[in-house]
């Protein structure tokens, strides 16, 4: 256990790093989208456009902060704060390296026995931000956006929970650090088929949970202006954007931790540089980067689903597939191992 002040400093640093990463993720996303769509993207401000996020931040702070006069004041202001608070809080349970590897301190904020459930619980509260923001704006399109988002998140949480079940059954623990140390793939090759299916289902559900294309119906700009964001401006709008990107990063880190060995590096590098696979943070960040790229890549590639397709896909296919993977995992553990 670290002393309390260390935990506090680490939590503060994590928040700052996540928000800094958010600023530069917007630049990376716009540059990558530009590249994929044969255009330049923002490249004027500083070398490679590196000062663009700072200019964007200044701009959104100094814009007029509009509060719709028909809005429910209290909930309208509360909603973006709920979004960003729970988005930042969720990351705290994800371990960044082996015990004591960060200059003698532990590279995580909380080491919970129920770390996995903690992340699921906190992210499921985050939906209130979107949901209440859309309602409090007291306007048609935001309300439609928030109704969509709540229906979508409830539907895809089933797929998410069921695909995690395979990992929980194999690892036999809810502690994220223990799950990384066990390494679910090394238990038995018999478990690979259900794990591959669960991994796929989990990635798809996670994309739906963070409202990214092709599941970005809550803010589908061609249909409902900007969904729940329509009536927000200035810093409140920026808070929602922060929450979205921090949620993406949490999802990427959560996928890596559950399925891809989290903070552990590849062991084949050990003969050259001893101890490299135990270096903290960098391996987790590298794995997260793969998924962040995947999220952006999907946005540039796939069209948005229609609402009924979204619901059918969630309830008819994803739910059954994840359930099948969980049952298969259970059967393999019970009858083969």
């Amino acid at each position: 256990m670290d002393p309390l002040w260390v935990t506090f400093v680490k939590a503060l640093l994590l928040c700052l790093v996540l928000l800094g990463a958010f600023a530069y993720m917007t630049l990376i996303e716009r540059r990558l989208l530009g590249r994929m769509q044969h255009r330049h993207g923002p490249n004027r401000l500083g070398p490679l456009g590196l000062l663009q996020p700072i200019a964007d931040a200044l701009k959104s702070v100094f814009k007029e902060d509009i509060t719709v006069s028909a809005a429910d004041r209290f909930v309208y202001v509360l909603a973006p704060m709920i979004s960003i608070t729970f988005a930042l809080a969720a990351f705290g349970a994800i371990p960044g390296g082996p015990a004591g590897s960060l200059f003698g301190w532990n590279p995580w904020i909380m080491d919970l026995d129920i770390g996995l459930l903690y992340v699921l619980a906190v992210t499921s509260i985050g939906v209130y931000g979107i949901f209440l923001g859309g309602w409090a704006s007291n306007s048609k399109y935001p309300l439609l956006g928030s109704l969509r988002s709540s229906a979508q998140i409830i539907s895809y949480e089933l797929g998410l929970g069921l695909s995690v079940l395979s990992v929980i059954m194999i690892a036999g623990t809810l502690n994220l650090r223990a799950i990384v140390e066990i390494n679910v793939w090394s238990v038995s090759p018999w478990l690979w088929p259900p794990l591959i299916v669960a991994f796929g289902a989990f990635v798809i559900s996670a994309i739906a949970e963070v409202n990214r294309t092709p599941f970005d119906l809550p803010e589908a700009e061609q249909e409902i202006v900007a969904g729940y964001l329509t009536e927000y401006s200035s810093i409140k709008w920026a808070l929602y954007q922060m929450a979205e990107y921090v949620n993406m990063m949490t999802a990427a880190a959560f996928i890596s931790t559950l399925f891809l060995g989290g903070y552990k590096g590849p062991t084949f590098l050990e003969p050259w540089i001893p101890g490299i696979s135990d270096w903290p943070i960098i391996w987790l960040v590298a794995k997260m980067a793969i998924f962040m790229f995947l999220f952006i890549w999907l946005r540039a590639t796939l069209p948005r689903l229609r609402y009924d397709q979204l619901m059918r896909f969630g309830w008819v296919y994803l739910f059954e597939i994840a359930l099948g993977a969980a049952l298969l995992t259970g059967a393999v553990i019970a009858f083969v191992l």
Partner: protein
Amino acid sequence: MITFAVLAVVLVIGALGVVLLRQPVHAALSLVGTLLTLAVVFVTLEAHFLAAIQVIVYGGAIMVLFLFVIMLLNLQEEATKTRAAYRWIAYVVGVVAAAAIATGALLDPRQAPDALAVSDALRGGSPELIAQVLFGEFMLAFQLVGVLLLTAMVGAVALVQRQAETPGAR
């Protein structure tokens, strides 16, 4: 003890908000706050698993559905239509019931178990302990509740489907 006192005050205020706030969405939000505070109480008792389940099931799923229905039906502030006499009766019954429960609790000779004993029995709030009780001692009750919920679900679907099944109804 101080933590519990603060949490208890927040809980009671939240619960009162559910009943007293006129706007349905505000009342539902107050309920969300109450449920989350209850999860914090579980955390102070070291019942971590229970706290997480409380947040996931009640905070994350049930209350989102509540709010979904409230927003879908666009419920507005309810004009008080009940007759004044009924309201007085309701007040009296409520106050008497609350007083009776409070007296009953205060006169109960049994001591409330102290927090240390509770957290000892929960053993860090691990899921294994709850699983042992739920799937061992109360297996039959657990399965009966499952059947009950299934019945309710089938009933609800049957009620909705009745219209569509008659030929030519669409």
